[in-house]
């Protein structure tokens, strides 16, 4: 007979990450932030031919944003579906386990 709690302490003992873990954390801290555009650069953007600029904006709005919205909704719905199936499966599994443990079916067919 084994002691499950002791076995869990052994199985879940702390482990170290890769040897360069600290260096990688520091490297990410040291990454420079992107430079802010100067006022001149911002002005240059505003001075670009408006027609092309607004066509580009219109294209982005009409294509990218709806696509992103659908993707977001789809991913969220997928996650909800998987959670639902997990909950269902868990409860079915627990019921089956209890049936096996008790060795009886408690209801009529």
């Amino acid at each position: 007979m084994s002691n499950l709690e002791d076995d869990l302490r052994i199985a879940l003992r702390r482990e170290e990450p890769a040897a360069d873990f600290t260096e990688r954390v520091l490297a990410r801290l040291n990454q420079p932030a992107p430079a802010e555009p100067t006022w001149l650069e911002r002005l240059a953007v505003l001075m670009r031919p408006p027609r092309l600029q607004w066509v580009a904006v219109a294209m982005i709005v009409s294509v990218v944003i709806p696509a992103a919205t659908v993707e977001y909704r789809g991913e969220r719905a997928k996650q909800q579906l998987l959670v639902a199936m997990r909950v269902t499966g868990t409860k079915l599994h627990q019921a089956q386990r209890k049936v096996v443990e008790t060795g009886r079916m408690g209801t009529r067919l």
Partner: protein
Amino acid sequence: MALPAFADIVREHQGMVFSLAWHYLHDRALAEEMAQEVFLELYRHLGSIQSPEHLVFWLRKVASRKCIDQTRRRAFWPKFGLDDIPEPSAKTRQADPMLSGALAKLVASLPEKARMLVILRYQEDLDPSDIAQVLDMPVGTVKSHLQRALGVLRSKLARTVGEIAL
């Protein structure tokens, strides 16, 4: 805070943070990435850390939250099956490394909160009231989840390595 001092903090606590993520996610690369995120967030919030004890509490809390959020985002599917755990030829206790591996996988297959509860209890040796503070849950809920999780682990493990007594 100077980077060398922060590096010392990372080295001191990286095992705890990484292990929380590793035992929870059972994906080494993802666990390292998650652990890095925790320390990057720590760096941004260093001003709010009040003491060494608070630091440990903060790290556990943020690591737990990030792990649970990560699995919810990725719809991490728990594996209830034991197909990848070899069946013993006789119902005798497995050697420790195999038992530990089987147990770790079973823990990683628990539902999100139960999984983190078990890890905080048996990796960090926290008692239920401390776990309740880290996870912002009622102590009674922590205790009942732990009890249920142990029951699940015991019965699943018994199917592969023989009778387990708690």
